[in-house]
């Protein structure tokens, strides 16, 4: 499987449109330089050409190629009814430039 999704995360994604995007998000260091962090969002990406589109047992998954088959897990977490997705098991990656 390209990426695992916990049962709770799957239910939450299904309730929020049934689409999952897993991508790399840049973070800049204050002394310069930067890194990429894996993030997950329940929406369709704006630029599809940077993603592999897969069907994951009924969920539409858009995933950055660098994150496929890395043993990562998409989970959902939250407090007081506010919830968001996150990618568990991902180390920080060198920024793509």
């Amino acid at each position, binding site marked *: 499987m390209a990426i695992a999704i916990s049962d709770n995360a799957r239910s939450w994604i299904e309730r929020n449109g049934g689409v999952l995007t897993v*991508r790399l*998000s*840049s*973070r*800049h*260091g*204050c*002394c*310069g*330089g*930067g*890194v990429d*962090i*894996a993030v997950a*969002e329940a929406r369709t*990406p*704006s*630029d599809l050409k*940077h993603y592999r589109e897969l069907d994951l047992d009924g969920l539409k998954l858009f995933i950055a190629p660098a994150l496929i*088959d*890395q*043993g*990562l897990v998409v989970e959902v*977490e*939250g*407090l007081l009814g*506010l*919830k*968001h997705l*996150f*990618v*568990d*098991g*991902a*180390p*920080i*990656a*060198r920024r793509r430039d």
Partner: protein
Amino acid sequence: MTALQDSQSPSTSEGMGLFERFLTVWVALAIVAGVLLGQFAPAVPETLSRFEVAQVSIPVAILIWAMIFPMMAQIDFAAVLGVRRQPKGLIITTSVNWLIKPFTMFAIAWFFLMILFRPFIPEELARQYLAGAILLGAAPCTAMVFVWSYLTRGDAAYTLVQVSLNDLIMLFAFAPIVVFLLGISNIQVPWDTVALSVFLYIVIPLAAGYTARRTLIARNGAEWYDNVFMKRVGPITPIGLIITLVLLFAFQGDVIIGNPLHIVLIAIPLIIQTVLIFFIAYGWAKAWKVPHNVAAPGAMIGASNFFELAVAAAIALFGLQSGAALATVVGVLVEVPLMLALVRIANKTRHHFPAAGEARG
């Protein structure tokens, strides 16, 4: 353990670009350029210092916002929702950052600057340096920790949560801690001055960053925000930092020329404090069997400083010509080589910690 986590720790040259690896050199060059500017073209800093509104220097305020805004614009406050994850790591680093670090910084800096180095530093100047050290100790790093975390193969999700949590706490805790520690150092700073500097250099950039993030993501999408907007805005921070340092040292020229040894004397307690805090957090994580991919970034977040904020607060509270501002710049001078040394220690001691998945931090 995931396939990505199996791989070796990245080398420094892979993890950091030319600018950040040699930050100490650029800071040293900025000091020289600033001193030369102050000595040979004093009209430049004098003219710039005239642009003031309500005793706030406009050129300095612009430079400080340029340094801090990009850092604030990349904070994802939604990550705070993960606060129940990696509870041991969060307890350790949050406690070290807010309950231990400001007070050990005060104690170490006070002992060295006010007692041990008394023969070398006049008391009033030593008190100013102590104020700078206090400002450094009260502001935990919020951006460079992602690079330190990368270099130690840290857990990305934990790093995001810890940084977001620290940013929220900083909003409320920075000013009271600073006022308390300055107070017991017999350095009187009016509350309204501290409140103004927190409003100008934390609240305004944070609100602007949050608004920019929400608005631009809603309008152009998250990928555009990360890959276009932040890629353009992110490099402004180090540029703003270097220009601020040139300006600062244009005013500090006489102090540096008269007392070059002071930079070394200020650096000693700052280095000891950073190493001590790293080992407190790292040792605590070892005792609690926290996995290395949380222990290492946790200790790095504990040890490193948000020096842009410290420099900004020192300038706002004490002025460009103050000893406090000089002390915060020494923090910038030693930060990168020191943190890289701690990265090496963390990577060499990886085998003493459980791997990710074997323990929950």
